[in-house]
């Protein structure tokens, strides 16, 4: 078998010194800025800003040469793991390869250089982009209409909950509860609260799926809806989804699909067809827009026809009219809940996602799902003798192992396994989530990792487990820029800025 391509074997160029902060590199009088020549007469600051508004002292930022600026951030980049360096099997995060062509799309001056308040006739290309993406996402989700405004999954969730609320209010109702399963992502309950609802948690059964009986027990006409991820965060498909949906619909509730991780079902099954009314999609997961170290993302929300009139506005639309040339404009839905973003959403992220969809097409997206599920199942089976599979049945795009038994036997937890895997050249899986699995290790290989990489990853985890048994895992990682960091100390002795350094005891 060929060598693994997804294993980062980067090596140190030099010493292990920390990189100083830019503030330590700073020296009064040094600078790197250069601004265009404008030919404008200079007006003294005192004439521009009345004394009562003027700042006392300049804001001290940092004073570095361009050369030092470049050295600083280039060196920092060498202290940062990334998909481009190696596999990143973080469960629930879908860290797949981000095609570089999408960077090129996002860098096009015709897209990146457009002011968001320019009138519609001057931004026809952007409107066409947004409409095309909205249509594609609706087809993928099996929905009727969408808003592209939400900037991330959590923003999408809250938008969806506000749509639920608007829908209820339009019906003259005021329901108070939203049901979520105990395996749900933390953003779900947090969004429920911000949506003005109370969370009712429904437990998973021994299959790792929503317990239908438990669900029925909490359903009544005070339930505005249910939020569900399917496949759920255990990577399992909720087989009873049809029954779940009709049970919720029966009491007049809406079904909300947390589509952060749509990867497994692309072209296989659609939330709309499963009975969902509202869906959000994380473009920074399924649609390969890079995660940027924590963002930006985009969390469009698609809805069934009966919710379209509540969508945030203004929405990009194809204008009615005759003739061959399509014209686009903005339209605010009749009973819109209002804006959920300062402008139109994370437009450049949206443009990337459209490019990704266009390259793949319907057929390619289906292949994505197949390969993602194949990879996850291969890992599941391969590692099932090394770790316990939390719920040992075929999974979808990800699989949750439990290191609880290992922990009991060896004292090494899932957390230790994660740190050990770093030394093997891989980013660790997600640990401690979902909460319902003890010592969870949640592996999502994604479809872009090769068979060789999966083998190497599995071998790495096997070696780590062996080290746990040998008792040599403690203290890992040793090969990283810093070793295990003291998280408790960070919270205890808060140093949130360079200016706070030394001020804390």
């Amino acid at each position, binding site marked *: 078998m060929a060598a693994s391509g997804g294993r980062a074997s980067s090596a140190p160029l030099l010493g292990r010194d920390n990189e100083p902060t830019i503030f330590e590199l700073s020296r009064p009088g040094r600078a790197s800025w250069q601004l265009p020549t404008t030919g404008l007469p200079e007006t003294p600051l005192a004439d*521009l800003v009345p004394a009562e508004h003027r700042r006392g002292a300049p804001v001290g930022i940092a004073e570095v040469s361009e050369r030092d600026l470049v050295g600083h*951030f280039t060196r920092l980049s060498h202290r940062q793991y990334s998909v481009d360096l190696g596999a990143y099997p973080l469960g629930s995060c879908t860290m797949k390869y981000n095609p570089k062509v999408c960077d090129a799309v996002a860098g096009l001056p015709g897209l990146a250089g457009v*002011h968001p308040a320019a009138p519609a006739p001057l931004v026809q290309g952007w409107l066409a982009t947004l409409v095309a993406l909205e249509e594609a996402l609706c087809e993928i989700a099996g929905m009727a209409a969408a808003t592209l405004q939400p900037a991330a999954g959590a923003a999408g969730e809250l938008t969806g909950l506000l749509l639920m609320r608007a829908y209820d209010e339009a019906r003259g109702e005021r329901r108070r509860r939203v049901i979520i399963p105990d395996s749900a992502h933390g953003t779900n309950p947090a969004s429920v609260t911000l949506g003005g609802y109370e969370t009712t948690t429904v437990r998973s059964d021994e299959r790792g799926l929503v317990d239908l009986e438990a669900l029925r027990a909490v359903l009544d006409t005070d339930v505005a809806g249910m939020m569900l991820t399917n496949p759920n965060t255990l990577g399992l498909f909720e087989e009873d989804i049809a029954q779940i949906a009709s049970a919720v619909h029966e009491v007049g509730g809406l079904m909300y699909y947390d589509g952060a991780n749509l990867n497994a079902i692309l072209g296989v099954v659609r939330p709309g067809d499963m009975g969902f009314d509202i869906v959000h999609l994380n473009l920074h997961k399924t649609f390969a827009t890079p995660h940027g170290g924590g963002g930006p993302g985009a969390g469009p929300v698609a809805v069934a026809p009966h919710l379209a009139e509540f969508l945030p506005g203004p929405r990009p639309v194809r204008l009615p009219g005759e003739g061959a040339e399509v014209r686009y404009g903005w339209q605010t839905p009749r009973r819109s809940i209002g804006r959920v973003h*300062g402008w139109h959403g994370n437009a450049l992220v949206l443009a990337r996602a459209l490019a990704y969809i266009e390259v793949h097409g319907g057929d*390619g997206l289906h292949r994505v799902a197949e390969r993602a599920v194949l990879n996850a199942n291969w890992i599941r089976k391969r590692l099932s003798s090394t770790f316990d599979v939390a719920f040992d049945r075929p999974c979808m795009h990800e699989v949750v192992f439990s290191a609880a038994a290992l922990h009991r036997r060896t004292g090494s937890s899932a957390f230790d396994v994660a740190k050990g895997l770093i030394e093997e050249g891989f*980013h660790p899986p997600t640990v401690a989530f979902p909460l319902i699995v003890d010592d969870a290790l949640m592996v999502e290989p994604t479809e872009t990792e090769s068979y060789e990489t999966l083998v190497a990853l599995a071998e790495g985890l096997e070696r780590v487990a062996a080290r746990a048994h040998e008792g040599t895992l403690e203290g890992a990682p040793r090969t990283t820029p810093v070793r295990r960091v003291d998280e408790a100390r960070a919270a205890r002795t808060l140093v949130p800025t360079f200016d706070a350094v030394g001020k804390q005891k």
Partner: protein
Amino acid sequence: MPDYLPHTGEDLADMLGFLGLSSLEELFASVPAALRLAAGLGLPEGVPEPDVLARASARGAANAAAGLVCFAGAGAYDHEVPPVVRALAGRSEFVTAYTPYQPEVAQGGLQAIFEFQTMVSRLYGLPIANASLYDGASALVEAVNLGTGSTGRDGVVVSAGVHPHWRSALRTFAAGTGHRVLEAPLVEGVTDWSALEAEGEVGVVVAAYPNYLGCLEDLGPARRLADERGALLAIAADPVGAAIVRSPADWGADVAVGEGQPFGTALSFGGPYLGLFCCAASHVRRLPGRLVGETLDADGRLAYVTTLRAREQDIRREKATSNVCTNQTLMALTAAVQLGWLGTAGLAEVATRCACGARYCRDAMLRLDGVEPLTGSTPTLREFALHLPIPADLAIERLADEGYLAGVALDALVGEDGDGSLGADSASHGLLVAVTERRTKDEIDGLVAALGKAVR
């Protein structure tokens, strides 16, 4: 045509064999057959990358706005972003990383955000800054949540000088939180807080500085109102202006928010931008979003890590201070690079040049027949509002033909959101003009001449 999937036919066969399956289809056995998409997605077939890029270029070419000299602002500004900033912020280690859940392999990104937090904190004068929120609007919403949460009062008094879209978002989210949002109107560009004095409990007072019409208001009254009502004061401050005007902290803000786009992020049709969020130390446990802190590693070496995580949704779930998870880290890192490039002097220079250009432009425009100030003699900084003798959207249309994006029609800005802070006539004839350090004298002279023609 190849795609991004590495599986060879042999790989597929081997892997399926290992799983005891005979087709990929069987992987989806747990999906009830009745729900399966029989005919596949109704999307076109995939097309190769070069075609997709060509298509995107064509769409870009259909955005006439991209080619115009930009005098539009209203929260999104055409600032200089040098190649060096783009090169550094675009390094793939930063772009393709996840949230730093494993700090040992994420020191690069963490340190950059620590530096970002420090810069934002210095700019706004408050000791705590988070790692970014989605945009200015969402930062404002979170500031209000912090204020109402901390005071236990659900009344929110917002100056109508806060960006109309932000106020719109505030109203949208208030439907969920149940906040009562009260707007204090603008008079000649200055908030009239007195109009609201009679109404109920107030948890937070929100002012803007400069406000969305470009005016520098005295925020003393806002602070006093907050004090009287036992409310927090949140200030939405233009971060570029902050380099030369009083900081939110100078005005006594408890929370400061802003739109960070001017720091290295392209106009991007409105996103991704980044919300700046700063607060007093006493509010740190209500801080929304991620916070990077300094700590030590097992060897006693300095290290960075996300901290006070017990506020966050993944740990606190329904009791979290906010639902934010993915934020705008890459834009925050970009802002740190851009601010590092500007440095102390460059930042002040940018702010001064903007104000300088805006003054020159405003003076010249006011010399045109029929063009009047919309905000009286209230001081403005890098943006100003005019009353034109013709509808502003018409003026914008005419000036686009001359190569200029002349500004933002106030109507368009407030109209969609049903904002009543401006009278109908002021809105439809109101033009908001922004001048950044990129605008040359020739461009301004050209714009003014074209405007003179257009309004005649």
